[in-house]
């Protein structure tokens, strides 16, 4: 699997792209929160996410854009609830470009995000909450060695039905095992660097 997907810090120039993703019904289906948010509200929220105070040395969250020379910006990685005490975070991975959503490029995107968490941020644990109906997403996460630790029964409403939410946890050792096993097959670099937009 060869792909040119790389991750970089999200910038204000990415705003229009991310807002456009979030306004699409197929994308909103997988988002937490009010689907009726106005474009202005979404824009304000994202500006708040992307903004960073220079005096704030420990950010509450880190937002990275999945970029590609072939496709352009294809998705967003959000690392939330970062705990430096517990060396843990919650990961949200959004693939905005629907053309790659079910391709190996999505798997590469997930790998890059996890590689950044463990090899750059030196985390011990990465957690992800995934809706049960989002099967491609949790299957992808399971491939990395993540364990479905909790099933929150009937926790989210979509289309008049209540669905379960799965809580996945991936520990450092588990990711390293996956990395050793898969790297030769994936043909990926062993070192991950957040690149500038350039």
């Amino acid at each position, binding site marked *: 699997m060869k792909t040119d997907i790389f991750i970089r810090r999200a910038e204000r120039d990415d705003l229009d792209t991310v807002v456009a993703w979030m306004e699409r019904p197929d994308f909103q289906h997988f988002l937490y929160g009010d689907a009726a948010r106005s474009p202005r509200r979404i824009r304000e929220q994202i500006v708040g996410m992307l903004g960073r105070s220079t005096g704030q040395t420990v950010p509450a969250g880190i937002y990275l854009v999945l970029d590609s020379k072939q496709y352009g910006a294809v998705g967003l990685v959000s690392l939330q609830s970062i*705990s430096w*005490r517990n060396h843990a975070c919650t990961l949200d991975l959004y693939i905005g470009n629907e053309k790659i959503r079910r391709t190996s490029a999505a798997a590469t995107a997930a790998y890059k995000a996890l590689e950044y968490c463990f090899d750059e941020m030196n985390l011990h644990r990465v*957690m992800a909450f995934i809706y049960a109906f989002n099967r491609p997403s949790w299957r992808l996460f399971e491939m990395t060695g993540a364990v479905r630790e909790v099933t*929150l029964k009937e*926790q989210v409403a979509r289309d008049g039905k209540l669905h379960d939410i799965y*809580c996945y*946890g991936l520990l450092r050792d588990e990711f390293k095992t996956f990395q050793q096993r898969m790297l030769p097959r994936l043909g990926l670099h062993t070192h991950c660097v957040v690149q500038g937009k350039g």
Partner: protein
Amino acid sequence: MIVKDHSLIRTADPDDAGALYPLYDGRIPRAFMLDRKREPVVPTRDELRELLAQKDPANGFFYAIEDTQGVLRGLAMLRGFNPEALCSETVIAMMEDADYSQPFAREALDFLLKQAFGRLWARKVMVHLLDTETACRAFMLDSGFVLEGSQREVLYSGGCWHNLDCLGLFRESAGYGPYPGPGAMET
């Protein structure tokens, strides 16, 4: 104020901060002290006083549990109501592990369930417990809560990793009947 056979349950007042403070002893991690990052928040007595003085329901409902002698035995909480899942988090924090096997603990939980299912129309209540809270875990399981899973190694404390258990109880299982659905309350 709710008077039961073995307890008196009332809203916790700022003046209870001193008596309740041992519950927030940082040496023994408890799940209810964890924030979103799963880091324990250990308030000072003044901060606890401020917390108990808050009247905004969005911050949760805090109740003191007294025994028949008027001794404060624990804290009951209902917080984090999720309007989408109609789910709320419950906390029963007793001063001593042995208190979970006392009738006043059961009465306090029954009161919380009545508040959640009978007044807030919650569909489900949840409890989060660290692996150190064995007495409370046994009490909740004995009360009908079902283990939904365990998050591994979420907290580093006391030189080791701790798991966080997640338990849930649906209103039907608690004997409150099925959720009536949207519009049932309309006249």
